[in-house]
């Protein structure tokens, strides 16, 4: 395995690390997008662990920082963020295309998954979407679900009784929140409405893009999956065109090392099974 740090894009302003396998396996290459504002190593260094595992299995990958994040300079041209993400993801694929990659998996965690889902249909080179904890406008019941377990935990009760619980913050935040988002938000928005979320997944299914969903069992994102996609994707899952991994006793960013190992192995098995 060889890793190389580089700058790419027209202004050479985007920072990336390419992990190159000693012997390519023929699987598509992976482009990893930022999770929130965390830089390209990913939450808990997940992107690095995944890239190195993939390289050991013959898969090329690139992790990078969108403009203004991590080690990448901000854009000076005033391009709106959503458009910049699309352009920069395409430029990232071009970097690996110059190294021989012909097909790609676009992926990430949280907002990285949202961006992958939004962009995967736009480029014919994308044959897979890696969606770890993708978000959409939450279902109304998600708060109850999300805190059900916490309310049963003695430690959480103590925090609740002493006013330190994050539940208070959530409730305070809800009090001042804007009215609920409309069922269909603006086209191309970064956090999709439920209808947009389903429509984007449907579009990828129609195009034959392979899908990998990974969730923490306690996450609101998984509540949305079960409510919005589980039945809809049952055929795709049984035909092997979509895979779903649900990890218990973890959180949104897969904090325990065991959860990280499970996630990395699951993703690597899946990408290894795809052909470019």
């Amino acid at each position, binding site marked *: 395995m060889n890793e190389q740090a580089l700058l790419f894009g027209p202004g050479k302003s985007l920072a990336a690390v390419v992990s190159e396998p000693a012997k390519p396996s023929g699987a598509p290459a992976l482009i990893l997008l930022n999770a929130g504002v965390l830089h390209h190593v990913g939450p808990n260094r997940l992107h690095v662990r995944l890239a190195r595992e993939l390289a050991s299995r013959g898969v090329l990958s690139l992790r990078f920082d969108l403009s203004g994040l991590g080690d990448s300079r901000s854009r000076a041209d005033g391009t709106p963020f959503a458009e910049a993400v699309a352009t920069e993801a395409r430029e990232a694929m071009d970097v690996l295309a110059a190294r021989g990659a012909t097909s790609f998996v676009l992926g990430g965690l949280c907002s990285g998954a949202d961006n992958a889902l939004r962009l995967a249909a736009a480029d014919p080179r994308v044959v897979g979407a890696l969606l770890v904890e993708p978000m959409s406008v939450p279902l109304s019941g998600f708060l109850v679900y999300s805190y059900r377990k916490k309310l049963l935990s003695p430690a959480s009760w103590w925090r609740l009784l002493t006013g330190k619980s994050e539940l208070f913050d959530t409730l305070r935040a809800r009090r001042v929140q804007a009215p609920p988002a409309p069922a269909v938000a603006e086209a191309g928005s970064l956090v999709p409405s439920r209808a947009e979320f389903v429509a984007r997944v449907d579009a990828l299914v129609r195009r034959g893009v392979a899908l990998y969903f990974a969730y923490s069992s306690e996450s609101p994102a998984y509540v949305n999956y079960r409510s919005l996609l589980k039945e809809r994707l049952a055929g795709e899952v049984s035909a092997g065109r979509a895979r779903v991994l649900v990890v218990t006793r973890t959180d949104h960013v897969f*904090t325990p090392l065991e959860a990280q190992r499970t996630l990395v192995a699951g993703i690597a098995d899946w990408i290894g099974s795809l052909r470019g």
Partner: protein
Amino acid sequence: MKPFYFGDRARRLYGVHHAPRGSSRRAGVVVCPPFGQEALRAHRALRELAHALAGAGFHALRFDLSDTGDSAGDGSGARLDTWREDVGVAIDEMREMTDSASVILVGLRLGGTLATLAAGRPDVEALVLWDPVASGARHLAELRAAHAAWLDDHAPGAAHGDGEVLGFPLSRELAADLAAVDLEGAVPAQRRVLLASTDASGRLPGLWPEAPGVTRRRFEAAPVWLHAEGMDSALVPGELVAGVASWLCEVGP
């Protein structure tokens, strides 16, 4: 900002070089990061600090310690002595890059500890220690308590294993290394040392009360390395960044 790898082929380190804007000063600045979650959450703050230093005419080098970030190693082999050596490798790299006889070290939290431990060489001219970890044993206890609280919330009943802390491997060897750290006895020989504190109590750092070259300053800033909303936003302590840059301009070569 230019990312690159440097150091031994067997232990390559990821670095980002911030070239000076305008006229260049003689010494470059090596920025030493904290460990684990703290390094992730403080990434933006250290980037902005390096950017401000480059604006003040310094070459600045941020880097990932081995077994962390984009540097070589899976985390299981991390040791404090190796990290101290990594700081030395970064110093050599900076000196080569700037063709300079000396460097300045800046370190946040455990990075401040490592900068202090690596500052025994004569080519380190000045030190900036931002809320350094003075007691490794206390740091270890705090990390373990935070990890135990996470387990109580997300995996009640799970064994509080020693092998990891909040998403990162923590071997027994590294834990023992940390437990043995006590900066009280590691008074730096440098005549220019800035102890930068963001302690909410308003206290100035009490480390090395007798050392003549130590300047103590308190800055109004949140502890960026503990920032709970790490995925959604990033804190940059503007007053501290500006204060460190201006102190280095005053004393820096």
